[in-house]
């Protein structure tokens, strides 16, 4: 009864003066890469609700969310790390953490934000509350030799897995003690370009640019070491030129299979996650960049590197082939599904628009103006492993 009364008073007060209460589950942000801005968006109304500037160089910027979905941590190319309050639509904190960064991740318990850096090569851990530096792991793979870090992903146990581009290794750093991380090293192969943790947090995969294959580590049994899958998928054939590096993330796992971009081949490789054997390859219309499963896993959407970056192919995972191919706009750089996948948002950089599509009918249901949009990040990422 008393609780009810308190609730009633709160409701009345809220109605009179205070700000309207709302959740964060249907919010997100769009990176506007050329102007150092982000546009905050609502996936229910399909409208922007705020724009925040002053985030520096946002080319190749990415974002992760606090576990309550209230705060976004945006990693800029220039090493800027910006914490944004999604509800108050303002910058809470901002630090310059390196010279040249490529993204970041947040720990299982939500307390540690980790940035991955090209220059100086390595990772740095920050307190998610204050953005105070906790510790760092320089990617010194040989005495005096530092590597660019790619593919950083969070794993259970406040661990982070990542790969070293020049070093050709997979590293796993355990931040159980955030000020004294412990790092294990595993061989990967030639020039790992990105990595992913499977949605269950068990496997870390590093795509290789310098050779045909993908390095794989079972995080449940790291003592067994890393191994290579999809070896020699190119079968010695000459590679097509790759005008943009593909990206990997745990979202490409659907229906017990992983859908991965081939390098130098206009194909999506399909791997059985139980056996890690190749079970198929699907021809597509360009060098795949993002290969992303709709949350239910029925569809996998693919965008492409320059000069095919106006196209999108949609794979039906039941049919095992492309069932819809279209050209939604110019410079399609990224896509993000709404939490349960009824819509997909595409950034059309050269059209200065974000395009919203219905994934069942493939019809366009909305668009938002944005200045050279690139990454789109919805708060639902807060609750997913490997994001």
């Amino acid at each position, binding site marked *: 009864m008393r609780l009810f009364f308190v609730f009633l008073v709160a409701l009345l007060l809220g109605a009179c003066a205070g700000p309207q209460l709302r959740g964060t589950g249907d919010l997100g942000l769009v990176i506007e890469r050329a102007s150092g801005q982000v546009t905050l968006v609502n996936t229910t109304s399909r409208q922007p609700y705020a724009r925040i500037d002053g985030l520096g160089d946002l080319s190749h910027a990415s974002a992760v969310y606090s576990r309550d979905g209230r705060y976004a941590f945006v990693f800029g190319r220039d090493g800027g790390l910006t914490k944004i309050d999604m509800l108050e639509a303002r910058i809470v904190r901002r630090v310059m953490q390196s010279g040249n960064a*490529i993204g970041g991740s947040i720990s299982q318990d939500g307390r540690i934000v980790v940035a991955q850096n090209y220059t100086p090569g390595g990772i740095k851990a920050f307190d998610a509350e204050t953005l105070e530096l906790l510790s760092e792991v320089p990617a010194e793979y040989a005495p005096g030799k530092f590597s660019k870090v790619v593919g950083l992903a969070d794993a259970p146990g406040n661990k982070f897995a990542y790969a070293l581009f020049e070093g050709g290794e997979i590293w796993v750093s355990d931040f159980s003690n955030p000020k004294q991380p412990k790092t294990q090293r595993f061989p990967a192969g030639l020039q790992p370009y990105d990595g992913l943790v499977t949605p269950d947090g068990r496997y870390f995969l590093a795509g290789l640019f310098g050779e045909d294959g993908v390095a794989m580590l079972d995080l449940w049994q790291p003592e067994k070491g890393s191994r290579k899958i999809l070896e020699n998928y190119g079968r010695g054939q000459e590679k097509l030129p790759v005008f943009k590096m593909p990206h990997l993330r745990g979202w490409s796992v659907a229906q017990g299979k992983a859908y991965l971009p081939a390098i130098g081949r206009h194909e999506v490789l399909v791997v059985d996650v139980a056996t890690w054997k190749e079970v198929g390859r699907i021809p597509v219309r360009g060098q795949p960049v993002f290969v992303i499963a709709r949350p239910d896993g029925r569809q996998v959407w693919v965008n492409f590197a320059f000069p095919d970056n106006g196209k999108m192919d949609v794979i039906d995972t039941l049919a095992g082939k492309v069932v819809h191919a279209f050209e939604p706009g110019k410079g399609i750089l990224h896509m993000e599904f709404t939490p349960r996948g009824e819509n997909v948002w595409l950034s059309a950089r050269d059209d200065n628009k974000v395009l919203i599509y219905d994934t069942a009918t493939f019809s366009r249901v909305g668009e938002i103006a944005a200045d050279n949009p690139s990454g789109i990040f919805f708060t639902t990422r807060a609750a997913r492993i490997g994001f």
Partner: protein
Amino acid sequence: MLSSRLVFALFWASTATLANAEPSTAGTPDAVRQKELVRLVRQDCGSCHGMTLQGGLGPALLPATLQEKPVEGLVATIYYGRPGTPMPPWKQFMSEAEAGWIVQQLMSGFPQ
């Protein structure tokens, strides 16, 4: 033989000077094409080298980082790519002269 080589060298030197002095000589892309090339470099080369060309997975392309490097080598890198690295050949999207123009711009501070 020697003299013909000298003449040849002088010819190259003079055209190089001409090209520097008069950007409108043959081989220099027109204004519309220049704009396209600038956008290509900033947006698409930028996905590896950074939109501000300060480097990423690929090296920085700023005047200070390029000044020691031979121009012909840089033009060839753009045009033919660099085997063993992720740098692809861009020859299907531009002429060698246009690659040369890009190098010239990169070395003197690339337009926005």
